[in-house]
């Protein structure tokens, strides 16, 4: 690894691209590379802060999102590091329990609502949806910009809540704890999430309309890249689920202000109703995080094995099936909540159904590799990592859908391990895979592939070391959200914290080489991976209008003949 020293780059301007081409089996047109510097693209079309803050270009809005979610990821990540450090000691190494509670609440709220949910949709969806269908922009560019501002306002409210007084509800805002018993800044945190929800709704709305109405001539539904099917399914969830959490948080805020409300046991209200309404959105929200990653993986696997995907229509429809089924399984978060046992049975049965389309996807990706021509550039390693971790995370979901087993592991570290395998092992791996795959398209620069592969390996190892012990902790019975725990759980906690430190290193490396590549990275050319898909047919970085002429699509997706 480390094929570029800085000096090498300086003295031999063109060679890195050539060398990369040879090493990775990619042909790079040096003329295209030289061309990049002078050509007008979306990045250099206009200058100044105003040209960014008032832009309606979907690509620039994607960059705005990229910067803001990266900031939130950093905040949430710092919280995660502190949590793991604290848990090295059974009695808590750093914080008082109250401070620890604020810390994990901050970690959860930021990571879920301000990083994972907008991550792939708002960054790569925004950047790629119009380009992949061959359109000049999304259907409603101004609404797209509005959604970013709404996101920022929501983020500001939440940051305010976190900085002034903190919030210690956990990201689940369970009543009556959140409505009656906490003295922290619950209202402004809830308001922040409420506001950010509308950003998510508007993004989803924009994508659905765009995919329906703006496809280029010849781009039929079954010629669409699978990333678009995944984005479409994700958007359905954003549109139909988010309003419910919005109104639920309004009810929580009202109850806090007026000291009476629909979840208040004192007037016959039922706290369990809150859980129903909350999970009606928040379970599908998990699929808002994972579905886009699944779409990304379909792109990566096909490109780096140079094959059409195995069972296109099954992969496509499984995305939609996941989106639909995800809405009828929420009760599995409530098996021990005091919900009726019969409702528990119904929800358990439905929960198993959602495993099927996920399994279909995993099998199809694996089968796609068969008789391929496989190369292992960094994005492909992230895709492999995704499949492995998602398989392990998804399968442990079966434990939680099973009534009797869930009774034992519910609200323990088993659940924590499970959803981190899905959200970090799955969604985050997909996000990083996407970042590595489309970075040359977004910035026009290549990053050092060797370092990227190293980072992928470190993340995979660090991740498993962090979260696998948590499954074991959960089975042993360690409850989640504990600042202080019995000493017999220490060994596994220390192991988990050690893994987290490796994971942290794995996340810092890409940050460094991506920043490095902005200045020193060799020009990428329009299609460094020789990938199919309309976004690769235009220059990197693309011009503001995306395509000089709207392309006409004549071939199927992933036509790697």
């Amino acid at each position: 690894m480390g094929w570029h020293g800085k000096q090498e780059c300086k003295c031999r301007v063109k060679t890195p691209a050539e060398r990369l081409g040879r090493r990775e089996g990619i042909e790079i047109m040096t003329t295209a590379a030289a061309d990049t510097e002078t050509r007008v693209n979306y990045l250099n079309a206009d200058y100044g802060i105003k040209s960014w803050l008032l832009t309606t270009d979907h690509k620039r809005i994607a960059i705005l999102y990229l910067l803001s979610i990266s900031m939130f990821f950093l905040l949430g990540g710092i919280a995660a590091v502190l949590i793991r450090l604290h848990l090295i000691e059974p009695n808590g190494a750093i914080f008082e329990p109250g401070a620890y509670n604020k810390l994990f609440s901050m970690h959860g709220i930021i990571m879920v609502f301000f990083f994972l949910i907008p991550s792939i949709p708002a960054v790569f969806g925004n950047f790629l949806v119009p380009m992949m269908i061959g359109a000049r922009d999304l259907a409603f560019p101004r609404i797209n910009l509005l959604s970013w501002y709404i996101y920022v306002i929501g983020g500001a409210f939440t940051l305010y809540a976190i900085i002034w007084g903190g919030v210690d509800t956990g990201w689940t805002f369970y009543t009556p704890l959140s409505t009656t018993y906490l003295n922290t800044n619950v209202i402004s945190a809830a308001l922040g999430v409420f506001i950010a929800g509308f950003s998510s709704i508007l993004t989803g709305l924009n994508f659905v309309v765009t995919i329906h109405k703006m496809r280029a001539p010849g781009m039929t539904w079954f010629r669409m890249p699978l990333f678009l099917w995944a984005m479409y399914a994700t958007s359905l969830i954003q549109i139909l689920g988010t309003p419910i959490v919005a109104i639920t948080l309004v009810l929580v805020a009202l109850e806090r202000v007026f000291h009476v409300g629909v979840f208040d046991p004192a007037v016959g209200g039922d706290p369990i109703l809150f859980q129903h309404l909350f999970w009606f959105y928040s379970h599908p929200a998990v699929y808002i995080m994972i579905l886009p990653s699944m779409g990304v993986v379909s792109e990566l696997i096909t490109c780096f094995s140079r094959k059409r995907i195995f069972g296109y229509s099954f992969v496509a429809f499984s995305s939609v099936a996941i989106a639909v089924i995800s809405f009828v399984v929420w009760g599995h978060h409530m098996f021990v909540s005091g919900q009726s046992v019969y409702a528990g049975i119904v929800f358990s049965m439905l929960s198993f159904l959602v495993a099927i389309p996920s399994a279909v996807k995993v099998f199809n990706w694996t089968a796609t590799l068969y008789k391929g021509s496989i190369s292992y550039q960094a994005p492909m390693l992230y895709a492999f990592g995704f499949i492995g971790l998602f398989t392990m995370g998804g399968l442990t979901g079966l434990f939680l859908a099973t009534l009797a087993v869930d009774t034992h592991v519910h609200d323990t570290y088993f659940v924590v391990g499970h959803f981190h395998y899905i959200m970090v092992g799955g969604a985050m791996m997909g996000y990083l895979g996407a970042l590595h795959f489309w970075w040359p398209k977004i910035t026009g620069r290549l990053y050092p592939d060797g370092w990227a592969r190293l980072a992928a390996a470190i993340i995979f190892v660090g991740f498993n070391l962090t979260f696998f012990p948590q499954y074991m902790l959960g089975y042993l019975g360690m409850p989640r959200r504990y600042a202080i725990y019995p000493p017999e759980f220490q060994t596994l906690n220390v192991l988990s914290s050690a893994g987290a430190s490796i994971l942290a290193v794995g996340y810092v490396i890409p940050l460094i080489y991506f920043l490095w590549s902005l200045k020193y990275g060799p020009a990428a050319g329009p299609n460094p991976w020789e990938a199919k898909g309309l976004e690769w047919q235009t220059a990197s970085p693309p011009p503001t209008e995306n395509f000089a002429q709207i392309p006409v699509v004549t071939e199927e997706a992933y036509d790697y003949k």
Partner: protein
Amino acid sequence: MWQGFQFVPDRASTIARGVDGLFYFLTAIDIFFTVIIFLAIFYFAIRYRRHAQRQQAEQIEGNLMLEIAWTVIPLGICVLVFLWGTFLFMRNARPPRASMEVFVVGKQWMWKVQHPEGVEEINELHIPVNQPIKLTMTSEDVIHDFSVPAFRVKKDVVPGMYTMEWFQATKTGHFHLFCDQYCGTNHSLMKGEVIVMEPAEYEQWLSGGIRGGTMADAGAKLYEQLACITCHGTGKGPSLAGIYGQPVKLNDGTSVVADEAYIRESVLYPAAKIVMGYKPIMPTFKGQVTEEQLLQLIAYIKSLRPAETPAPKR
């Protein structure tokens, strides 16, 4: 750091074996599929790695039989696991008739336990071994969760309603009791111990701990203090003798079964359900009785036999 480290949690209840069996079955399924996927990826990735720049992949559209196979087989496994898990769960959801009933009140941040004989304890639950125990639980403030990993049981403890869990310990010893539902600042301190004893030892412990008579006795005292007897027992209010578990006709024509929740509601919100033929004259006792006292009143009302006079026994 290695103190007390173990791979498998204590297995100390009748339920634990069944749950663990299913847990290991699921683990085996997980390992099986994870290994298949990992091996396939590794094998394909090495076998079909790209040697030359222009090496062609063989284009395969898909295979319907395979798609059906990997839809139907997981579905079959899911159905099996669902049935198995549901069967166990339903068995574990119903306490045996001969259960010993213990009352639990969760409160930020402690567990208050009352035995039928009147013994109260905090953050500890003493129980006899090999005896089904049924916990009737409620919360004074927020949602808690009564979890005993060694017994493989847990259930949320919700304000405003009674939840129930039961178990039968098979081993004597000390076991962790955790609050598993996040309940505020000192959530992680809301833990205690379940102490399982030989029946004889338990009897001994019990006799050493009795302070104010049984729960029903305490309830009877309360019944007098609160002057319930001036109406319930004189005909001004409905008689409470033997009503527990029986249907009660209400003045709107419907009827309810007089269970714990009904009695609790009638004490706190008397106007909510009016018994047929009576006037809504009862004052509320909200704020005058704690959740524990409510449980004592319920215990007392339960102890009244239909034949007895409605007045307290003393």
